[in-house]
């Protein structure tokens, strides 16, 4: 037996040497132990390990299915008609099948993030080696999700491989259960959904740890620079290199090439979706200047391409329209695919001479190329963009219709209604056509912000009117003004910040964290999101954001002409607006909650998921909002939040996720927890009221956000603050006092000071509570006691006296 303590091991000849992955897993766990990381009961949980925790969540938050289809088409026994909760040929019923469908979508999202993580990790290990230290700024708890789930405390890039091995194994296990003839119980598909969501956050975290550590991205930096955003900020007079996607690995070579060849001022590099965000984080650590501009979200992709401004499009992975190549071709824009996940059938030119590739694309001999070698990509990208700019100018490429053609195009409309029926939001296109005939383009302009540029109307129109192009042409003035600022993604919340703010969060004196995340499939345009953030920031909530949401929040200015990012600082403090970064940075949001449990509350993190989740569920008033969520990634992120007890709201389109988790406030028995001090049951407020639900309008959303930040652990000051916001927001946006406000009152000190007398009167009159009017005290009425030292928990074993 050979024992090695330190140093590098190189194994030249493995004959008769027994090394197994399993053993190394054990070794790494042992390492954690040796470093004083006590590993909890559930490192690397399998499908069933945390099942009892899930069943606890699910006993309060009932799975509600709103099928996106009455049929199942998984196998050739089918299609099966499951309507009315019938069973299909394999015996599965509608409820279980919809849970299965949701699981499939959740693990698709988790796979997208994890596969992204695997790609960028391989790439960065190739560049910097396994020993490259993970550095996230002033933090000892670098990888909260990873540690809580796997028990592994990664310190180098190399350590992350094992983490992904685990995630991939579990995703494969879950994908297996999608196979016809596997799980039959809806409730156990639900548990698997939560498992998949949890894995997603580990996958995201790995991606983020790798890139922040290796790419000189900001590390827990509240003072990151402001980045220009909007279609209006792109300087079309320069060659424009447009990047679309989520994985910044390849484009860094382009950015470096530009910088090294002093082309920074000669070329406009702009991005769509999360690659854009990460481009603006690349090398801006310690005051670096962002080297790219942001165009916006997926809802801007087709608009931007159709504008014809780009001279070259580079795509990587995720949230890239499938028709980029076709659309670009029409406007003589070459496309370079740079990632195995999206290859568009393009010829693989990775091993070719950059000059040949540039020639073939510039001459339009080829519409595009697949380039997986980033050195080649780095050179081809900028040089081709410069070349194409000239060529396309000379060709006189015209993108949108000419002013003078607008009326004619509108006149072609036969008012068949196909476009409106096919538009995901049933936007009033025919009205715009009608007005367009009279050269009134204002109704097209009106559609611009509401339109998510999906292109379905174009596909539907029997007269082949380029509807989206009409909208965009009519909105040229708007678009020119469409510029704002986003604060570059700051990365993790640091340990000192957690130490400072943790207590306020748990006691409720900071009224809550509103995490505004997700995609751009809004029901009613982007400005809604601005309204939500503005309102909640004014009310001192911490607003955390990322990805597409973070971008859209930067597109608007308040009355003073400031964007929210200019107005609000980005520390982890009440009333701050924090852009953590791209989609994979969402792991910082759950990570923050875990860090509060770990750092403020000193809970053991490693391999101790249930206890951490239980802590968060009962004490941290955070609500996620993915108002425009459309992707499988979004539902994966949401499910990961849910397993930690963090509720998530999605906009109305989110109903197409097929499933929600909704509590029943009228079922008193379901709103109880244990007091860990003695194992006795105690009632809790009916908040969060849901784990996942849909909401129809932002006016409805705002009071819901305030209400669902209420937690059992609130002290009286905290509860008072939260209740004040709930009542005020209900009055402001729904025009009345909420019906259930009194349910959250434990004692008179929970009542908003200014309205205390008035509210006490209501409590007496309408709810029959007994009031001692002399002392202005509540004598009887509340169903809960105010006891800040109570230790609410859902987990019996965590109570004193239990195992």
């Amino acid at each position: 037996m050979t024992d090695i303590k330190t140093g590098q091991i190189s194994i030249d000849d493995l004959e008769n040497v027994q090394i197994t992955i399993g053993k190394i897993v054990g070794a790494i766990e042992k390492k954690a132990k040796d470093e004083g990381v006590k590993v909890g009961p559930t490192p690397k949980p399998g499908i069933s390990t945390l099942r009892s925790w899930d069943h606890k969540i699910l006993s309060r938050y009932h799975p509600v299915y709103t099928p996106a289809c009455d049929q199942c088409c998984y196998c050739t026994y089918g299609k099966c008609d499951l309507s009315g909760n019938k069973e299909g040929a394999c015996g599965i019923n509608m409820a279980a099948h919809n849970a299965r469908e949701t699981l499939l979508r959740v693990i698709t999202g988790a796979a997208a993030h994890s596969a992204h993580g695997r790609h960028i990790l391989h790439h960065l290990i190739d560049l910097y080696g396994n020993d490259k230290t993970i550095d996230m700024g002033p933090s000892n708890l670098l990888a909260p999700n990873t540690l809580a789930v796997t028990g592994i405390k990664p310190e180098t890039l190399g350590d992350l491989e094992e983490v992904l091995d685990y995630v991939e194994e579990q995703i494969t296990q879950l994908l297996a259960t999608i196979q016809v003839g596997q799980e039959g119980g809806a409730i156990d598909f639900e548990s698997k959904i939560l498992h998949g969501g949890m894995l997603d956050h580990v996958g995201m975290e790995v991606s983020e740890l790798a890139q922040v550590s290796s790419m000189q991205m900001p590390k827990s930096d509240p003072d990151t620079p402001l980045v220009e955003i909007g279609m209006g900020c792109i300087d079309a007079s320069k060659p424009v290199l447009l990047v679309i996607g989520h994985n910044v690995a390849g484009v860094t070579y382009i950015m470096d090439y530009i910088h090294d060849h002093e082309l920074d001022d000669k070329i406009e590099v702009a991005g769509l979706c999360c690659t854009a965000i990460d481009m603006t984080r690349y090398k801006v650590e310690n005051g670096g200047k962002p080297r790219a501009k942001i165009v916006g979200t997926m809802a801007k992709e087709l608009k931007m391409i159709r504008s014809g401004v780009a001279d070259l499009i580079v795509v990587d992975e995720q949230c890239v329209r499938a028709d980029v190549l076709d659309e670009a071709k029409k406007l003589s824009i070459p496309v370079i695919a740079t990632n195995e996940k999206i290859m568009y059938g393009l010829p693989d030119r990775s091993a070719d001479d950059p000059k040949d590739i540039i020639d073939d694309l510039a001459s339009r001999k080829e519409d595009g190329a697949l380039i997986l070698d980033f050195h080649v990509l780095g050179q081809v990208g900028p040089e081709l963009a410069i070349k194409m700019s000239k060529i396309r100018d000379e060709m006189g490429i015209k993108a949108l219709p000419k002013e003078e053609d607008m009326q004619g195009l509108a006149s072609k409309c036969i008012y068949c209604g196909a476009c409106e029926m096919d538009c995901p939001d049933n936007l009033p296109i025919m009205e715009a056509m009608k007005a367009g005939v009279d050269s009134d383009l204002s109704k097209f302009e009106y559609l611009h912000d509401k339109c998510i540029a999906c292109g379905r109307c174009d596909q539907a129109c029997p007269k082949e009117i380029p509807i989206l192009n009409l909208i965009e042409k009519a909105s040229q003035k708007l678009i020119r003004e469409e510029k704002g600022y986003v604060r570059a993604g700051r990365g993790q919340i640091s340990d000192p910040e957690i130490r400072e703010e943790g207590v306020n969060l748990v006691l409720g004196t900071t009224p809550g964290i509103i995490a505004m995340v997700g995609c751009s499939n809004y029901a009613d345009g982007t400005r809604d999101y601005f309204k939500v953030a503005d309102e909640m920031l004014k009310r001192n909530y911490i607003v955390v954001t990322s990805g597409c949401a973070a971008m859209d929040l930067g597109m608007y200015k308040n009355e003073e002409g400031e964007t929210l990012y200019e107005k609000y600082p980005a520390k982890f403090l009440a009333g701050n607006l924090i852009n953590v970064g791209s989609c994979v940075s969402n792991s910082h949001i759950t990570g923050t909650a875990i860090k509060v449990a770990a750092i403020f509350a000193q809970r053991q993190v490693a391999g101790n998921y249930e206890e951490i989740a239980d802590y968060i569920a009962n004490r941290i008033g955070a609500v996620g909002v993915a108002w425009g969520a459309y992707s499988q990634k979004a539902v994966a992120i949401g499910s990961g939040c849910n397993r930690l007890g963090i509720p998530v709201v999605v906009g109305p389109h989110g109903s197409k996720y097929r499933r929600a988790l909704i509590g029943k406030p009228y079922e008193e028995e379901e709103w109880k927890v244990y007091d860990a001090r003695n194992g006795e049951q105690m009632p809790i407020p009916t908040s969060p009221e849901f784990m996942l639900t849909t909401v129809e309008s932002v006016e409805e959303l705002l009071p819901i956000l305030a209400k669902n930040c209420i937690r059992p652990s609130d002290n009286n000051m905290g509860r008072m603050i939260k209740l004040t916001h709930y009542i005020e927001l209900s009055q402001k946006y729904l025009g009345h006092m909420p019906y259930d406000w009194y349910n959250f009152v434990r004692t008179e000190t929970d009542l908003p000071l200014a309205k205390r007398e008035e509210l006490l009167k209501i409590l007496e009159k309408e709810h029959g509570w007994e009031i001692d009017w002399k002392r202005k005290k509540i004598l009887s009425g509340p169903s809960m006691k105010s006891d800040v030292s109570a230790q609410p928990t859902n987990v019996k074993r965590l109570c004193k006296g239990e195992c």
Partner: protein
Amino acid sequence: MVDTTKNTQIYETWGRNVAKPVNPNVAGKVITKAKRPLLVVASELLKDEKLVEKAIAIAKKGIPVAATGHSITALMDKGIDAKYINIHSLATFLGDARWSGLDGKGSYDTIVFLGHKKYYLNQVLAGLKNFTDLKTLCIERHYMQNSSLSFGNLKADVHFEALDELIDNL
């Protein structure tokens, strides 16, 4: 009489069960015959003052109203029995025999919808259709295929006419 049953064009299908198209008089009868009907209105109502009027007129016939989204803002102090509730919660509770209704008086049997986003309501209805025995009736401008009964796709003015006729039939 307005014929509201003709145009049942759809963009996508859910399955083989689709709403039966109804005329306003039949819709009226369905509501009148219901043991305990509930009118569920939503925020799209607010986009047209006329629609608000119709909703109020229906409610005035003594039908309790669940106001989803922020539609309640238009219905307060109008002398009708309207209460705010989130529609996803409402749909969950509607299917639960243990829920005692918005007013504590027990469950509903016929649910009437007006003023909703088309895609959103169709999802909500998909849940009700597959997991409850409730009768659902959509009196929207759009054909709502996942309802038990629905108007077809109507022009705005025809829709108002139809609603008037329905109100007359209550």
